[in-house]
């Protein structure tokens, strides 16, 4: 039974911090949401309380969806993020598995190099990459970003998966090898299925990074029809020193929904430790 004193302590120790972080996490979404449904007259009115909406309108959403290519940008973004993430996960596994499981000369150096490559800032790479993309004749195609995003995603996925792979007990693989499985069979049928939470984590982060990427998309995708959401909204909803705040916020909110859905859908797998107890029994 929780006493009055205990209830207060519970509120202070649990619910107050939870509420604080909840407000911190959700306030930007709330701000985006209310800005996107405020008419301009209210948006610019300094005399009204900014946290509430008096006369909500869907005008900004209608304008965004009918007067810009937002739906096309969204499709481009999803396609690019999904394919780049898939490529990066496959290559990331191929890089992380030997580093985590095999002993060979230079493994430590390669692992460090992977981390170092991930730390190379994009502004140093975009001009050489632009040169390569132009030479390959891939400018203004989604392939250009699908191929360049893995340059930052593969080291990221590999580094994340490397850590995860090391937590999987070696005994499981050894048992499979004793039972006659080849290394490839062990990897495909025993090891990788156990790493699903790691793939989900790396996949979600890689997808989010791809979806939000700005610089490469700005440089390689210059036609409206091939733009992604971050570049599309900046290029076409910021005009000179006039910002179309309502449409910008509507675009930002709609653009964040897919990732929010993916996060919520996979959150259980993401959190659950599938390897827990796997060596028992």
């Amino acid at each position, binding site marked *: 039974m929780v006493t009055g004193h205990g209830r207060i302590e519970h509120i202070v120790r649990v619910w107050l911090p939870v509420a604080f972080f909840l407000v911190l996490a959700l306030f930007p979404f709330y701000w985006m949401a209310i800005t996107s449904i405020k008419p*301009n*007259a209210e948006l*610019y*009115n*300094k005399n009204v309380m900014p946290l509430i909406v008096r006369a909500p309108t869907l005008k900004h959403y209608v304008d965004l969806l009918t007067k810009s290519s937002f739906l096309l940008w969204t499709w481009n973004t999803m396609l690019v993020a999904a394919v780049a993430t898939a490529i990066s996960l496959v290559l990331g596994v191929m890089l992380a598995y030997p580093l985590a499981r095999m002993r060979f000369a230079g493994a430590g150096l390669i692992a460090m190099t992977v981390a170092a490559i991930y730390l190379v800032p994009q502004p140093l790479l*975009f*001009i050489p990459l*632009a*040169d*390569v993309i*132009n*030479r*390959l*004749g891939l*400018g203004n195609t989604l392939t250009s970003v699908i191929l360049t995003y893995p340059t930052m995603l593969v080291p990221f996925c590999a580094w994340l998966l490397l850590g995860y792979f090391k937590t999987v007990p070696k005994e499981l693989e050894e048992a499979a090898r004793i039972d006659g499985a080849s290394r490839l069979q062990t990897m495909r049928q025993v090891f990788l299925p156990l790493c699903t939470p790691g793939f989900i984590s790396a996949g979600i982060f890689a997808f989010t990074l791809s979806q939000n990427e700005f*610089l490469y998309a*700005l*440089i390689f995708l*210059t*036609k*409206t029809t091939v733009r992604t959401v971050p570049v599309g909204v*900046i*290029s*076409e909803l*910021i*005009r*000179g*020193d*006039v*910002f179309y705040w309502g449409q910008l916020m509507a675009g930002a909110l709609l653009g964040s929904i897919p990732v929010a859905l993916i996060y919520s859908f996979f959150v259980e797998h993401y959190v659950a430790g599938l390897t827990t107890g796997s060596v028992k029994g």
Partner: protein
Amino acid sequence: MAKPASSTATSRRKFLKYAAAGATAAISRPWPARADQKTITILHESSFIKPFDEYVTNTLAPAYEKETGIKVVYEVTSVGSLPTRISTIAETGSGADIAMNALLQIIQFGEKYLDVGDLAEEIGKAQGGWYDAGREAVQVNGQWKAIPFSNIGQLMNWRTDWFAEVGVKKFPDTWEELYEVGKKLKAKDHPFGFELGHGFGDNHGWLYPLLWSYGGAEVAADGKTVVIDSDETARAVDFCRKFFKDTMLDDVLGWTDVSNNKAWMAEQISCTNNAESILWFAKREFPEIGKVTDQAMNPAGPKGRFHLLNSISHSIFSFSPVREEARTFMHWLMQPKQLGGWYAVADSYYQPLLHGYDNAPMWNVEPRNIPYRDALANAHLPGWPAPASRQLAESVAKYIVVDMFAKACAGASTKDVIRNADAQLKEIYRSA
């Protein structure tokens, strides 16, 4: 039965060989050949006046293609992204064939642009001659590195109704007169709002003209001698400090270009320095505010009246495979039929730098925009009277003059801010 080890090894080796050969071939492949139909690509900022962009894609480009068979692609990007895009094209030697220059980009990328002096002179001769500001905007080391297109002028935007409340019907003629009006308006809760932060235009838009109007300058006409440390500069700084303290909102120190537009629509400020975007947006979205918004030339100081030259121009990349076609296109574009139509859809937001348009019908649409045309007579690039140079671009990029004024407004002494600006400028101009 498993394959012999040697067979697998050979297969791997072959695979690696083919992969390496393929990758090398792909990377070292020559520039992709263009299709039979020639294409000219123009990189432009996305104009805040949408019909301006649409006029190119819906009218000019199809007309040119019909006439010549050459396709014109009009790529737009935000003004903030423009330098990144031009840098990439300039460094990789591939991308758009023609680029729009804003601010001082002509200096930064001039080496990569064609000299189009003959074309510019011919266009000028046929259309009443160029404004001096037009030449100043695009000439680098005596060469025309672009065809001037327009100025996006900065003027005083003022609320006629609130000025009338303190008995002012006509915009003050001098900075001191404006200061006196500003004090009264601030007392009535209608402060001024002039950008003192790190935006891209509205800060330089009034601070350089203020400096010049008191007789100050960054560098002498030789483009080498730093002359910021002067009594004239000190008087401009002293004026700016009291102007800020007694007439403005405090948060202008952190403003960027979007801030005064927003404050205007929120009816927070009664006077600011901005391009035509405030009036244009107010007329469409806030008609009541639009009715009481007017524009005026910058006030005069003891040494005269000045405006900032914030030009737009078009350059042809020297490495473009269709540079000759691009020159022909620019010649076509700058003819009155095309150019006049393009200017007309933009409500005089883009002010022509050719005298042939001084009395064009575009000026009759909104008489409140006429001061933009008149301001061209005394509009200059930031480093004036020095010619445009890389050092000037660096000084502007580092906000040296803006920060000199802003720090004084924030409380630093006049002597300190000028000494600091002087030291920074001398460091920059040491290489001149």
